[in-house]
């Protein structure tokens, strides 16, 4: 199958303050008191993967590890569990970052599903090795919701970088 080259608009450079803001908001979302609600999306992981794909020189494994550690402590989980998961997620996102943007949004979402599921699998294996019980299949529901949110999320996060459409008759392109 040959990929259809889609018209891509040239984006403005991303602002560091916007990256920090979105990551902080996603972290806040994760730390909201969710009780034991099933299938709450791991928004931090999704936003992190988004920036690892779109800004691989600014957001990388180090930031992923730090965010993971904050979540570990905030959730009272095994220290290093999320840190490890997010590091691997950032690495996987970095590995696919050149390729994934050629796909239409729903295929990107499939890529993300795979990435998020592998991160969750890793966390699951670690916790079971540390002596926890299998929490049930609904544990993976968050990843599917995250993947479904991916097209919307990537549109929203790219919004500040969109150029205003200025019609210039004299410009050649």
């Amino acid at each position, binding site marked *: 199958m040959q990929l259809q080259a889609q018209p891509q608009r040239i984006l403005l450079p991303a602002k560091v303050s916007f990256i920090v803001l979105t990551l*902080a908001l996603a*972290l*806040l*979302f*994760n*730390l*909201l*008191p*969710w*009780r*034991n609600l099933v299938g*709450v999306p791991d928004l931090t992981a999704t936003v992190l993967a988004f920036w690892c794909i779109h800004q691989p*020189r600014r957001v*990388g*494994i*180090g930031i*992923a*590890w730090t965010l*993971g*550690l*904050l979540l*570990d*402590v*905030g*959730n*009272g*989980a*095994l*220290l*290093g*569990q999320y*840190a*490890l998961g997010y*590091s*691997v997620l950032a*690495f996987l996102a*970095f*590995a696919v970052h050149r390729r994934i943007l050629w796909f239409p949004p729903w295929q990107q979402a499939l890529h993300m599903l795979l990435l998020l599921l592998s991160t969750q699998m890793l966390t699951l294996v*670690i*916790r079971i090795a*540390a*002596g*926890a*019980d299998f*929490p*049930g299949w609904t*544990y993976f529901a968050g990843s599917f919701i995250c993947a479904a949110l991916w097209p919307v999320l990537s549109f929203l996060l790219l919004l500040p970088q969109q150029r205003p459409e200025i019609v210039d008759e004299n410009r050649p392109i």
Partner: protein
Amino acid sequence: MDHQPPPFFNRGPAPLVRLTFFVSLAVLLMVLDARFRYAESVRQVVALAAYPIQRVAMAPVDLFNGVVGYFSSTAALRAENAALRAKQLREAPELLQLEALKDENNQLRRLLDARERLPRKSVFAEILYAARDPFSRKVVIDKGSQNGILAGEPVIDDVGVIGQVTRVYLLMSEVTLLSDKDQAIPLQVLRNGLRAVAYGGGESGTLDLRFMAANADIKNGDVLVTSGIDGTYPPGLPVATVARIERDAAYAFARITLTPTAGIDRYRQVLVLSNEAMPPRPAEAEPPARKPGKPKRQRKAG
């Protein structure tokens, strides 16, 4: 020949090297945390850094509660007030007698030369949030070591025991609920004084009463209270009721499932009881030599 690439192509270490570094750091932390519990100081520092974020995360919920509270009608408040008044009135005779009974009880205990039951100090706390960790059952409360909370203290609500403080930060504490898989609590059947130990059932939110003989005198609906022999939980606090008993001749023990009395989903207010009223523990005997390479898992209670 010392040829360096120009600095504008420099992207630092390769991704795989970075991944290896951070993964080994995380694994190191995990091993320290899970096996040796050396990572507590790291956790304390990170917790202090995360505290402002957590408080901000609580704000929308507080706002929502505030708005809901503002719009709750006067009629509902009046009805609740009336119900509370009636409850207070119903309980008044027992409360009035309680002081007299306490005195009498202490006097009788003195007569019997038994130790007096000492009052415990308690700290009022609110549940901030339930930790979002699908592998364990914990809640975080808003009082920490600054309010004199210590790890190991029991936590109760108005109807029964909900769990035990397992980790204390400066301004918050983690409470492990009784239904957590690694939590155990010594109990006593209220009806006949039979003692047992209940373990958390994990995901199901129930408790398991293990190692009870198949012919033990226990029935559906029996109320279990803390026995107090562990020195952690004060005796006589309601904990659970028997929900189901399976007696199978193939096993030496009965399978008994309990439903916890206290519900953490209903109220946010809890009481942390202090341990300090307990007399000092007798000097422990020389602990048996541990096998190297396989450290024993710690049980918090029991």
